[in-house]
Every structure is written in structure tokens, then in C-alpha cells.
């Protein structure tokens, strides 16, 4: 592996945006880090101190093979072991829609991290709205490609829902960005009517200062 390899080519557009919010040299925990592409980029490109948690043993092996510090386990079981403010950023990328207790998770995430970065597929995207309206079937899209009976995505979240959630649950949204993506990993930022046009929402959050 040559050290000159440009790391940005290896990560998706949404991951690139997440990475752009992270200060160099910070401590980052990626919950559900997959094969570790984002962490690998952050470690080599931004010198962050990385930790990942991944449920799949095969993906965990892939992460450790990249030289990343990753723990094979369930995020709900692994989070409680960390002390308060252990990390500068805790990332929950495209996983919130699979979580049983989202409010509890967000609270613990903001207990162990000074800031949280949460991204999820936007269920109010126009394709989803149109599919439901015209076909009458539960929508299937590139972002949410499962049938209702085999999907790991047990929750449907919209960008507006997440903003409302922040007020109900009690956390502060520092930044948000809405995007559409292409099959090859590239993407575009959506500025016009994100609730209608965006496929994903990405939020930078922190604890409420009371």
C-alpha cells in the first residue's frame, strides 16, 4: 500500500461531508463502522485517534486488517463502558433507523462524546412519497432496499422528524446538511426543499446547555 494513495477516493460523499466536520487530531468513535472506510480516512487523512464498534465479525476483521482499533459487538452493549466525554465526536452513520431505543442511544452518544454526528435516510424523499401514493406498497428505494418483512430498518425517519426529535428529546443541532447520492458514491448537496428532495440528512449535534 503506497502512502500517497488519495484517501478521499475511498469514501462515499456522505462520509466525506462527515469527515469535513471533524477537527484533525480529535478522538472519534464510529458506531457501526462497517469495514472502516471512514475511520481509515480520518486516521490517515486527519490524524484522528480512532475507535469503531461493529456487529459483523467479518467487517471487524476487515477493520483490524486496516490497522484500526475496532471492537466486535453491539453498540448498545459497548457504549456504557466508556467514561463521559471520552470522545470528541461520536458518529452514527445510517444506523439510527435500525435502533430500538433512539432517544436513549442519542443520550448515551452525547454522554461519551462532546459532539455527535448522525445521518439517516430521509423517508420524506419525493420518490418514497410518490411510490406510496401511486403503488400502495411499502416503498423500496436504493437507500432503503428491503421488503417490509426483511428490513433491518425498523424506523422511518424524516429530516423534519429529526428536528422535532431534537426538541422533544433535548439536544442541540449545530449543523445540518441534506444530500442526494449516486450509485458510484458521488453526491450533491440539496439546498432547495431538503425534506422533499434529499435522500439523506446529516446532523452535527451536541448536548443542550442548560
Amino acid at each position, binding site marked *: 500500500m503506497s502512502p500517497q494513495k488519495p484517501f478521499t477516493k475511498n469514501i462515499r460523499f456522505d462520509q466525506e461531508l462527515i469527515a469535513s466536520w471533524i477537527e484533525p487530531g480529535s478522538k472519534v468513535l464510529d458506531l457501526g463502522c462497517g469495514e472502516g472506510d471512514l475511520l481509515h480516512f480520518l486516521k490517515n487523512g486527519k490524524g484522528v485517534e480512532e*475507535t469503531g464498534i461493529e456487529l459483523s*465479525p467479518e467487517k*471487524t*476483521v476487515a*477493520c*483490524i*486488517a*486496516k*490497522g*484500526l*482499533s*475496532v*471492537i*466486535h*459487538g453491539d453498540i448498545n452493549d*459497548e457504549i456504557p*463502558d*466508556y*467514561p463521559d466525554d*471520552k470522545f470528541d465526536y461520536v458518529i452514527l452513520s445510517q444506523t439510527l433507523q435500525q435502533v430500538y431505543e433512539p432517544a436513549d442511544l442519542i443520550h448515551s452518544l452525547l454522554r461519551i462524546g462532546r459532539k455527535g454526528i448522525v445521518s439517516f435516510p430521509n423517508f420524506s424523499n419525493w420518490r418514497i412519497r410518490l411510490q406510496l401514493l401511486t403503488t400502495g406498497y411499502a416503498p423500496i428505494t436504493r437507500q432503503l432496499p428491503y421488503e417490509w418483512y426483511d428490513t433491518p430498518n425498523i424506523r422511518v425517519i424524516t429530516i423534519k422528524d429529526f428536528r422535532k426529535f431534537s426538541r422533544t428529546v433535548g439536544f442541540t443541532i449545530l449543523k445540518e446538511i441534506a444530500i442526494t447520492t449516486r450509485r458510484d458514491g458521488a453526491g450533491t448537496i440539496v439546498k432547495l426543499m431538503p425534506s422533499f428532495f434529499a435522500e439523506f440528512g446529516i446532523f452535527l449535534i451536541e448536548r443542550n446547555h442548560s
Partner: protein
Amino acid sequence: MSEYTEHHMNEISVGMVEKKFYTFAEPPCEMNLESGHKLGPVTLAYETSGTLNPDKSNAILILHALSGDSHVAGYYQKEDPKPGWWDIVVGPGKGIDTDRYYVICSNVIGSCMGSTGPGSINPKTNIPYGLDFPVVTIGDMVKAQNELIEHLGINKILCVIGGSIGGMQVLEWSLRYPEKILSAIALATTPRHSALSIAFHEVARQAIIADPNWKNGKYYTGPKPDLGLSVARMIGHITYLSDESMRNKFGRRLQDKKDFSFNFDADFQVENYLRYQGKKFVERFDANSFLYITKASDYFDIAAQYGSGSLAEAFSRAKAKFLVVSFTSDWLYPTYQSRDMVKAMKKSGLDVSFCELASEWGHDSFLLPSENLSTLLKGFLGCVTSKTLH
């Protein structure tokens, strides 16, 4: 651990290796043991492969399990039917790459594979120690290894690696000499020996002690307690396998017969296998060493020793970067024991990676060919190396 898989000379290998010896703690400067007793002189048998770099920063110490020895990889001579016990992992381009690292493996004290143990000559009596050999601990084994490392002029070990009782030594190293190791890999091991594991060891020891040839450990001039030791090995072997692997390997198949014998010969393949393993073991292992090493692992409890009962407090002494690996079908040191360890390391703020690998082969999995395990070792070591060598 059981017998490793067969290999051939034409496979990639470190080639010829040599069994070396280092003797220290000559009286009156004997080694102080945890029991309060003294031991000296102490000899360690060891093996090295690869090349130590000029700044001595590429040393890896491999720690063996119960019945292992210092012969970790390669061959003593061309005619050897088998290479060292972890040849699948240690060698040029392998998981532990001898082109990059200087690999050291030493035989534990208490063993019978070249290091000082109950079968060695007691200089005070000029006959083998037998039960006059003091009971040693995992801590004592590590203390002796540290003498060897100092003798080799190495101030900082890049990584200590071991499985099972070797894994216990890894944990001990990380707490006893936190400044001396940069990283640690603990495979299929436990931070404290459970009641279940102690129970199996005790049954195995009682099999040896009940053998009339054992004679309170004074059997070195006469017949050996082979029967007891082979039963002890058979018990051990059961705990190294798993329900699934035994079902797949033997099932209820009969050995060379179509019907039951209606006597107490080995009817089933599994019986035959265990008898064979037991018989093979007595040819190479000393019964007293079996007693001493199993006792050492039964005493092992790092929470009690270093953390007043708290694992997290124990690990707060450690500084190494850790990789912990467990195997799904290991019921001797099940995954929950590795997870306890990882939890404590996280609470102590240590840098730890953990993976439970799927394997049907039980506790023995860490000794068997596994692409996943080699990938983990390579990735982890590569990361530690790039941090230190630049």
C-alpha cells in the same frame, strides 16, 4: 492444546532453527518466586527467528500454552516430520512475518521441554526435583521470560502474543512490565481461571496422582505414571474440542468394526482418538510438569492480583495497545471471559480491538489454520509497527 496439523518441508517456512538455552539466577542470587520460595539456577530453552533490527525495536515474544514448547516455527533438522507448533502463523510473509519481526519463543519454567522444571536435576540433591520443585505461577513464568529478554538486550518488546495459558502470560506481561511492551495479543484466553477450568484441571491432576507409578512425583528412575498422564491428556483434549467438532469428526461412528464389542475395548472412534492422543502425549511430556503448569493457570486471576478484585483497576496499570480474540465454540475460555477483559480495558481507557471469530473447533481454534486470524495479526502488528518505526 492439542497436536497441530501436519505440514511439509516444501511449504513456506523460517527453515532451520536452533534450540538455545539461557541460564541465570545462579545461587546465591536465586529467583524469588511468588510462593516465597527461591529457585536457581534457572534455565530457559528458547528459539529465535527473523533478525533483530539495529535499534532492537522489532522483537515479538510468543508465549506457549500448557503442553507447548519453545519450538514455535521451522525445523530443527531436515528429517523432522513436523515444524514448530505455530508454523502456520510464524514465518516469512505469514501472520507474524519473520521477514519483518524478530520472533522469540521460550519454554515456560515448570515445563519439561528444556526449561527448568520438576524433572530437572536439583543441584542440592543431584536427583530430579520431583515435588521439591516449588509451585510456580504465571507471574513467575513471565518474570523468568523478562530475564531472557534483558539478556537479549531488548528494552521494549513490540508485541507479546499468546493463546490459552500463553494468553494468560500475555496479560501478565502487560500488567507486570507495562513499560516494556508496546502491544499485546491475547487469544482464546481468560483474565481469571474459572471454576469449570479449575475443575477439569483437578480431575486431570487426580488421574496422575492416582497412578501407582506416580509415587509422590519420585518416578524418574523407574516406570512413569503414563496411564495417569494419558487420562489427564484425554480429559484435556475433550475441553479443547467442541460438541460440534466432535459430532462432525467422530459422531457415533465405530472404530474398525460393524457392531459393538460388548466389552470395554474402544468401540467408538472418539474413544480410539482420545486413547491415541493420550498415548502420544506420554512420549513427550512429563506428568509432574503437567501438575505444575495446570496449577499455575488455576492460580491465575489478574483482578485479584492487580486490582483488588476489579479487572478495570488491574488494567489501569497497563499501557499496551491490545488485540483480544475469542472463538465461538471455545467453551473452556468462552467469549464472555474475553468480553469481560475488553470491557475492563475500555473502562481503563486502553486502546483495544476485539473480535470473536466463528469456528467450530473449540478452544484449539487458535492453533488451526485461519485466514481471519492471520489477517487480524498482520493488520494489528502492521499498525503497531508503523506507529513505532517512524
